């Protein structure tokens, strides 16, 4: 019963505070989607430069990432990770995370004024779909009521998505755990007037 209530609450935030037709969309130029993996035990960073995040009360969250936009600040690394052993961007150009269940993270909510959620959903990456929970904060912009910032961090195992196959699957030189961090500025979409 408690769990059920918790599941209702976040919907309450995103719905009660706004009309049910509210739609939010990411502003790419103000947003970041980074990942970090270990290279011989040391952190090395990459980022996706093309992605979109959509929120609507009905569909909840939809995240699309252009995998070919992965950038690790070096041409050789970039062409390596685009190859079949890694992202195989020729065959799998897009990753999609979709969630139709937002759960309030009550522990997080008690800690700060931000609203803390967990988006329960599924990540489709390199042709593999895995259930993934994405925790995030929802920070309304104090200046602009039509803006808010979503941010969060999670750890994925690249092995779950067959990323880094063959000799790379041991995690010997390039770690298995990949930390993903994001800061996404969301803009409320104005409703199209009905004709």
């Amino acid at each position, binding site marked *: 019963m408690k769990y059920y209530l918790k599941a209702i609450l976040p919907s309450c935030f995103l719905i009660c505070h706004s009309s049910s037709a509210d739609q939010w969309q990411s502003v790419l130029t103000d947003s970041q989607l980074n990942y970090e993996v270990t290279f*011989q*035990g*040391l952190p*090395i960073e990459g980022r996706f430069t093309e992605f979109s995040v959509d929120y609507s009360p009905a569909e909840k969250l939809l995240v699309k990432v252009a995998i070919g936009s992965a950038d690790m*600040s*070096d041409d050789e690394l970039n062409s390596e990770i685009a190859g079949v052993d890694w992202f195989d961007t020729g065959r799998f150009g897009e990753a999609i995370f979709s969630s139709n269940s937002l759960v309030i993270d009550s522990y997080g909510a008690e800690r700060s004024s931000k609203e803390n959620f967990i988006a329960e959903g599924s990540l489709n990456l390199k042709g593999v779909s895995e259930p993934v929970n994405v925790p995030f904060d929802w920070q309304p912009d104090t200046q602009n009521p039509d803006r808010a910032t979503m941010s969060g961090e999670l750890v994925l195992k690249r092995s779950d998505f067959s990323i880094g196959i063959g000799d*790379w699957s041991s995690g010997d030189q*390039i770690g298995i755990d990949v930390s993903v961090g994001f800061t996404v500025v969301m803009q409320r979409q104005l409703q199209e007037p009905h004709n």
Partner: protein
Amino acid sequence: MGMGNTEQQWGWPSKLLHWFTALLILIQIPLGFYADDLANSPLKLELFGWHKSFGILILMLAIMRLLWRMAGSIPTLPDASFIQRRLANLGHSLLYGLMLVLPLSGWIMSSAANRPINWFWIMQLPALTGPDKALKEIAEEVHEVSVILLLVVLGVHIGAALWHHFKLRDTVLKRMWF
């Protein structure tokens, strides 16, 4: 055998550093060429991890040796002409220069290519620069030209040592030995 170098003899720190560096360079050059030839794989990354670790060690040893030379003196060339002394001096200057330039250009290459260096898997080295494509290509060029130059100078260095030992039958090689 003393610590300091004399007119006739190298002290044991100089000898130790010389032969340890020689051993490292002997491993380092084929290791670099071999790893460079490999297709991208965990083995390639691991071998380059060793290559970078050895390279930085050679750099540290070269700096120690230079400081040691500056703090003391070095033996003189026996019965050598002015030209011979100048050539020997040039050869040794080139060797020291290359022992600095090769590791440094490699380190810059790694940093410019956004790859951290985990020195012998015990210590992270600071990046000398941020990601920089142009700088990476320059450093790579310098590294490649320098190793060819090193092979030539090493050939002359070893050849000259053997020539002194077997042809001139002087003490030049012996005084570097234990």
